[in-house]
């Protein structure tokens, strides 16, 4: 399942001419197949917006997004769903409160006309480390970590090649975050998935990502390999500043 991602000059602006508001001036980067790519930045930098554009949750952008060489705009809807999926930040908002896990997992299977619903659902729920009894639970009967696992199961049940992750662990406790990150690492190892992960936590980037882009005000300032974090190998001043602050925050224990 190879699916490299290429983003060319993605931009969002409202209005015309000189008065136009460029909400997202220009974003370009590419992700190799099977890579885990991080999108880092502060609030308002546009990183979540980029994910939503890739997923075609908003249509209001210009530019070109290619997945596996194919223009994401031209893909038929159902095919796009089997190519990319997304995991959202808030585990309490990403599952329908009135639907059981079984319903939530069966819906995509029904929409795409896949067979063996029960088998696929059981496998999906097992793969994320939950027992099959969870199929009959409702969201309010599960903890944040369990809901996030179900969200991951739902994303993977259609067997996509690309998984978009929007701060998947920032709303979870540290110990639960560790479990979910381990799960994501394992799934990627097993299935050769490509991840694009939005996060504000450079420690998570350092743990999981191969490369990452630093965003500021809707633009990519720099794309760096993971090794650039520890020694602060960034060149762009904003990226340098961001990494420096994170290193200080992480534990200037010596200064303490």
């Amino acid at each position, binding site marked *: 399942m190879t699916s490299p991602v290429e983003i060319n000059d993605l931009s969002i602006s409202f209005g015309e001419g000189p008065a136009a508001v460029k909400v997202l001036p220009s974003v370009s980067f590419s992700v190799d197949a099977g890579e885990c790519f991080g999108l880092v930045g502060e609030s308002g930098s546009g990183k979540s917006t980029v994910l*939503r554009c890739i997923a075609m*949750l908003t249509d209001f952008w210009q530019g070109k997004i290619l997945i596996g060489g194919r223009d994401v705009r031209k893909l038929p809807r159902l095919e796009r769903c089997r190519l990319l999926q997304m995991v959202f930040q808030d585990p309490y908002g990403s599952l329908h*409160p009135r639907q059981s896990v079984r319903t939530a997992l069966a819906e995509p299977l029904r929409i795409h006309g896949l067979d063996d619903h029960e088998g696929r659902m059981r496998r999906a729920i097992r793969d994320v480390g939950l027992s099959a009894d969870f199929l009959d639970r409702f969201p309010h009967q599960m903890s944040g970590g369990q809901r996030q696992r179900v969200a991951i199961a739902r994303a993977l049940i259609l067997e996509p090649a690309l998984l978009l992750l929007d701060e998947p662990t920032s709303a979870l406790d540290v110990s639960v975050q560790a479990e979910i990150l381990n799960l994501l690492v394992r799934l990627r190892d097993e299935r050769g998935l490509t991840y694009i992960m939005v996060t504000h936590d450079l420690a998570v980037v350092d743990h999981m990502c191969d490369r990452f882009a630093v965003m500021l005000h809707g633009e990519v300032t720099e794309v760096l390999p993971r090794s650039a974090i520890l020694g602060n190998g960034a060149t762009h001043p904003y990226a340098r500043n961001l990494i420096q602050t994170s290193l200080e925050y992480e534990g200037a224990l010596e200064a303490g």
Partner: protein
Amino acid sequence: MTVKDTDMPRVSSGMPTSLIAMRNILAYLMRSPTSAFGVIALGLLILIAAFAPLIATHDPYAQDLVNTLQPPSAAHFFGTDELGRDIFSRLVWGSRISLTIIFLVSIIVGPLGMIVGTTAGYMGGRLDTVMMRVTDIFLSFPSLILSLAFVAALGPSLNNAIIAIALTAWPPIARLARAETMTLRQADYIAAARLQGASSLRIIVKSIAPMCLPSVLIRLTLNMATVILTAAGLGFLGLGAQPPLPEWGAMIATGRRYMIDSWWLVTFPGLAILTVSLAFNLLGDGLRDALDPKQMNRR
């Protein structure tokens, strides 16, 4: 490491969840005296309507011109009207008419309002604008006036009155459903559904409508009080149920002439209308608390 199901509290199996929910809501309602009154009053209404032939003491249409305008007595619990008909029996049989009105109006107004509201709210854009302007047109008519016009055009009858009432009762439901939908469509689970390839119709029907249902139900319940009163008003004006149907509003209309000397002609139908309206209001209030998502844990 597999997370075991035993790590969480046991889920009771056996009854389908919707029945469990209804039983819990009912238990919650019975705990407060006001909503309990509402539940009991409406329960009684339904029972009386169902067993009307057994409860009524006389034939509601049977005239007894010898015994007109009799005060309440052992023979006639609520007295007789100007044609000697037993008022108690007419009230009992009239409950069927009231229930029919409530039922039919709900059946029309609920789905219509939901469909218009959720579609307009979810699709947005021009469709939303058009639908909302149509809603505004219906909303701008005072309900009684529109009912009058409608009935005047089509002729007075109970069915026409029901349609007329329904025509003015649906816009608030549509507005409500639209407002809820516009909030709900921002949710991540809707985005997830879109990502799975669900069509707009599927999302509206399966994901959005169930979430709007509690508010709509509460609003419908509260509306019922107004519906009863409007139907009574139309009956009073002679535009709804036609004589000799024992509709409560019509009974007040004809009884008005004899009101001074024969108070029982208007009092008992009036009390019946009051009780049912009040019961719906209290039930609606109770439902609002019961269906509040924050109360879910207490249920």
